[in-house]
């Protein structure tokens, strides 16, 4: 059953459209991420579901019932905020007990349930402390426990890890994922961090300018972007202007000709964009066998950046075209000297043709 469903729901403020009419449904037990830059409408969508704002058009269904006119406190949802929103004047126990007290749960049961969920988030020892005595990561786990404890039909998360540092964020991603799998909770997660979206989601909904740009499982979103926006937003990519030749290959701005993955829209003569992920481009060194890669270009090295686990090579092609190749760092793998000649190669399957404007439909 769909725990949350938006049916042609949209929101406008006067002449400003915050969210065009969208359809979305989140199935029971699913982890769906709303991904997009700020102003893309993801927070509006979350607030429509939470009931903090009313849609201008369309309907909101929660657990199968029309909840468009249900006030937020009657929707039976949970929400985790970026700044945790724990009540500073209550102990951790009282914080987690709050939704149960509101529901007039018997005291015995409250004690049992609170202890249980604090165990679940690995924080049984902090029950008598105040929120300010906990670290950011611990506070966010308490906030999550406070949702789990009353078993809402869906937990909404508004950039919950945004205030944490990188290491802690990665830990918390795993933790969230574990709790999601263990308890089979339905989660709707909002973030602008594409890595987070790729790591955690069952399904990503990419938003752009108040519309759904593309949705699908992370691998599909990454490997089959249907627009330049999607390709650019998820992962890094080389994107060049190009034209399709009569034989189906593409010539890009630098004059280099390359084979591309066949797409119905990419008919000969079409002006479009060609996208290649930097990690699919190989630097050909002496003695390397390049026969596996049908697409090859020659250029001059601009610079090399070592980013810990990976190295990025920036290479200049003709006509001010730059190409980025990414390799795994290995000892002995040397940086390119600026100005040196470089040969790069990749497979046709890794060159995706994308429409110059709009997206591939279907």
């Amino acid at each position, binding site marked *: 059953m769909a725990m949350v469903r938006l049916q042609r729901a949209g929101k406008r403020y006067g002449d400003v459209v915050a969210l065009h009419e969208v359809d979305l449904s989140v199935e029971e037990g699913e982890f769906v991420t709303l991904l997009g830059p700020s102003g893309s409408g993801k927070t509006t969508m979350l607030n429509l579901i939470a009931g903090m704002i009313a849609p201008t058009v369309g309907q909101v269904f929660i657990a199968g019932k029309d909840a468009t006119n249900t006030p937020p406190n009657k*929707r039976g949802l*949970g929400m985790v*905020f970026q*700044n945790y929103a724990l009540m500073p004047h209550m102990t951790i126990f009282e914080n987690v007990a709050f939704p149960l007290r*509101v529901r007039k749960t018997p005291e015995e049961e409250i004690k049992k349930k609170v202890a249980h969920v604090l165990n679940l988030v690995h924080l049984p020892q902090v029950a008598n402390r105040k929120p300010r005595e906990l670290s950011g990561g611990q506070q966010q786990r308490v906030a999550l426990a406070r949702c789990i404890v*009353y078993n809402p039909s869906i937990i909404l998360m508004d950039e919950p890890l945004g205030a944490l540092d990188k290491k802690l964020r990665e830990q918390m991603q795993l933790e969230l994922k574990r709790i999601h799998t263990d308890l089979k909770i339905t989660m709707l997660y909002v973030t602008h961090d594409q890595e987070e979206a790729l790591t955690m989601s069952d399904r990503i909904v990419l938003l752009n300018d108040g519309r759904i740009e593309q949705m699908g499982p992370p691998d599909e979103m990454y490997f089959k972007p249907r627009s330049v926006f999607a390709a650019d937003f998820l992962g890094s990519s080389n994107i060049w202007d190009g034209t399709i030749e009569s034989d189906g290959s593409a010539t890009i701005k630098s004059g280099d000709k390359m084979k591309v993955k066949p797409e119905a829209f990419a008919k000969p003569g079409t002006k479009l964009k060609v996208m290649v992920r930097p990690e699919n481009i190989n630097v050909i060194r002496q003695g390397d066998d390049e026969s596996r890669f049908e697409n090859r270009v020659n250029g001059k090295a601009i610079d090399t950046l070592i980013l810990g686990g990976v190295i990025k090579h920036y290479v200049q092609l003709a006509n001010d075209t730059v190409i980025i190749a990414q390799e795994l760092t290995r000892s002995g793998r040397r940086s390119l000297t600026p100005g040196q000649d470089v040969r790069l190669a990749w497979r046709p399957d890794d060159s995706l043709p994308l429409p110059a404007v709009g997206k591939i439909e279907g």
Partner: protein
Amino acid sequence: MGGGEKPVGASVNPWSIFSTVMAWLILLFLMLPSFIVVPMSFGGKFEMMFPPTTFDTILYERFFSTGNWIATTITSFKVAIGATALALLLGVPASYGIVRGTYPGKKIVTLFLLSPILVPVIVLALGMYLYLASFKATGTDLGLIIAHGVLTTPFVIVTCMAGLRHIDANLETAATIMGASVMQSFFKVTLPLLKPAMFAGGLFAFLMSFDEVVVAFFITEASTMTLPVKMYSSIKWEISPILAAISSLLTLLSLVICLVGAAAQKKT
């Protein structure tokens, strides 16, 4: 600057010396009356003299043993407590509506609620007198409580508005989504967090009402006089040295209330 350290390269600015000296002089000027009145209150019982020639607590004994003065003091406390309660009852919900509400005309409502600060006290006093007279409420404690309530509510509103702006609105949103009604979220989340601001605003309202002369002078009668009004009336007939003792007590009361307020702020 917490550490009290000078930034690198900072030179002593003659203007900063001048402004510091001025500030101290002004403070001294403001404090001077207290420095004179307090020693005077321990002087003899026949005249006000500075510096006092004897040390005596007779003026205080007289104040506490005169039924008239005590009754007036009790009236003052009653009125101040009533006005404070009224100001909190009106001011806290009003500030909530101003800070959290979104509705057209909010600025105008705010201005209206704060307007007693802007109107000259004498105008307010006259208006209150005429208004309460039409209900035959002049000369009653309740009448003065209402008048002082009007006078002090804006100050409670201002402190509570500041307090509310410091309370994360997400806390109320979180409470609502967890199932709390508007009332539950207000009483269980907002109000406990607003306590320090309410306490500060309430103390302020209490002190204002307790000290207030102009409005009280218009509205009270001989039988319902408050302390400041009685002091003023008695000074018209004779300069009784007991006033020095009462003034000192009032200073002490203000001091204690301010210290309590400061301690409460520190605790939160």
